[in-house]
């Protein structure tokens, strides 16, 4: 169970379908709260990272690393191998690549060579277009025309160790994960898939694992606004016979 913290200018924020951003607090404070609350991992996505802000992000990653006792992933706007090195050196366990990997897939391979596949998470923002899903980049603003399933298979071959799969259609809607998308992706890869986008209840989270066949589930807003606790999600999973760390 992975709470996700979207970061903008050093603060945690949350929007609906990638828009209407509202403030949800200090990242380190939030991170420690989730660490104590039983989260298994954390993901931090810098949603507005520009080159100038990279320094702020690195300082933040260092502070997070000092205060966490569980693994965490950092992503958002990482463009080069130097970015991957800087974030990893600052203490992140994994980095997630999105637009930069689409632009230059070799970046996945280069990062994996340097730090191992387990360090490279391929983040994919998927949106239904006709009868398939397309990969969107630049924070969901641009349709690449790439087919999600083809891209994910390629990502695994290039060396990605994990897939962070966000359904843009469901993001912030709280009506459950796109289970069909999850099933299709999970069928095709032999690396862990993290379900993201749409979970509104503990049952939705459990559905992601039990029905979507995801290996982990991620949510942001329902945790940040304290609508749901990590413990509640885990209890629901346990009740449904899902093997999860309590």
């Amino acid at each position, binding site marked *: 169970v992975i709470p996700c913290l979207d970061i903008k200018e050093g603060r945690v924020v949350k929007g609906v379908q990638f828009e209407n951003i509202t403030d949800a607090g200090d990242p380190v404070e939030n991170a420690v709260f989730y660490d104590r609350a039983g989260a*298994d991992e954390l993901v931090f996505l810098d949603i507005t990272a520009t080159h100038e802000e990279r320094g702020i992000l690195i300082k933040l990653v260092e502070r997070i690393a000092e205060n966490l*006792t569980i693994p965490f992933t950092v992503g958002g706007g990482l463009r080069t191998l130097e970015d991957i090195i800087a974030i990893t050196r600052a203490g992140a366990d994994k980095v997630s690549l999105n637009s930069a990997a689409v632009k230059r897939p070799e970046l996945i391979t280069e990062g994996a060579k340097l730090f191992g596949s387990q360090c490279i998470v391929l983040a994919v923002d998927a949106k239904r277009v006709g009868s398939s899903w397309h990969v969107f980049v630049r924070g969901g603003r641009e349709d690449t025309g790439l087919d999600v399933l083809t891209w994910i298979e390629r990502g695994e071959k290039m060396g990605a160790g994990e897939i962070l799969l966000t359904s843009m259609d469901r993001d912030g809607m709280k009506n459950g994960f796109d289970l069909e998308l999850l099933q299709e992706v999970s069928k095709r890869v032999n690396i862990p898939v993290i379900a993201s986008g749409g979970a509104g209840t503990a049952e939705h989270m459990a559905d992601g694992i039990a029905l979507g066949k995801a290996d982990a589930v991620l949510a942001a807003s329902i945790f940040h606004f304290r609508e749901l606790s990590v413990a509640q999600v885990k209890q629901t999973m346990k009740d449904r016979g899902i093997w999860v760390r309590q």
Partner: protein
Amino acid sequence: MIALIDFGAGNLKSAEHAFSQLGSTRVIERPGEITGDTKALVLPGDGSFRSAYERLVETGFSDYLKNENLRPLLGICVGYQLLFDFSEEDGGSPGLSLIAGNVKKFPRSVGKIPHMGWNQVAIKENKKSSPLIQGVQDDDFFYFVHSFYSELTPSSQSAELLSCDYGFPFCAAVEMKNISGFQFHPEKSHDLGRKLLKNFVEEVKAC
């Protein structure tokens, strides 16, 4: 003082933070930096076995550690694997040979590789009283990230403290005289992981 050996692997920071909270900690790159007040050595971190071993040879740590039989040495993840004789990774490489055994790749049949995430351990028979694992109970969870596992030999079998299951049982923690190691990441395994590191530091202080 605890010295963390930097062999160019990823994410040394987490281990450094975790040990710093338990006492005086330093990161070293050469055996020459080991001082009289260095009470224990730690080989932490992610990375590939082969490049890690090459770095240990280059820096002289490999010779140093092979002859070092007094100070406690703790290996974590790849650092744990380096304690053994040989690893299949990257076409094969010798290790430090401090504990007899080989490091092998998980077969595809076990499921997703790397074995990544939280998994449960079991305490080996007769090991419940080992000071290093005090506070750990059967079925407790620790955080694993690895594609290779260690296979002990009949002569080193008794060093196994904890086992884990991923398709089949494999060794998750060892202890033999002054040498110990964890295949999982104690520094990433919440309170229980921190407890293990505390156990190690306390054992060191008692030496």
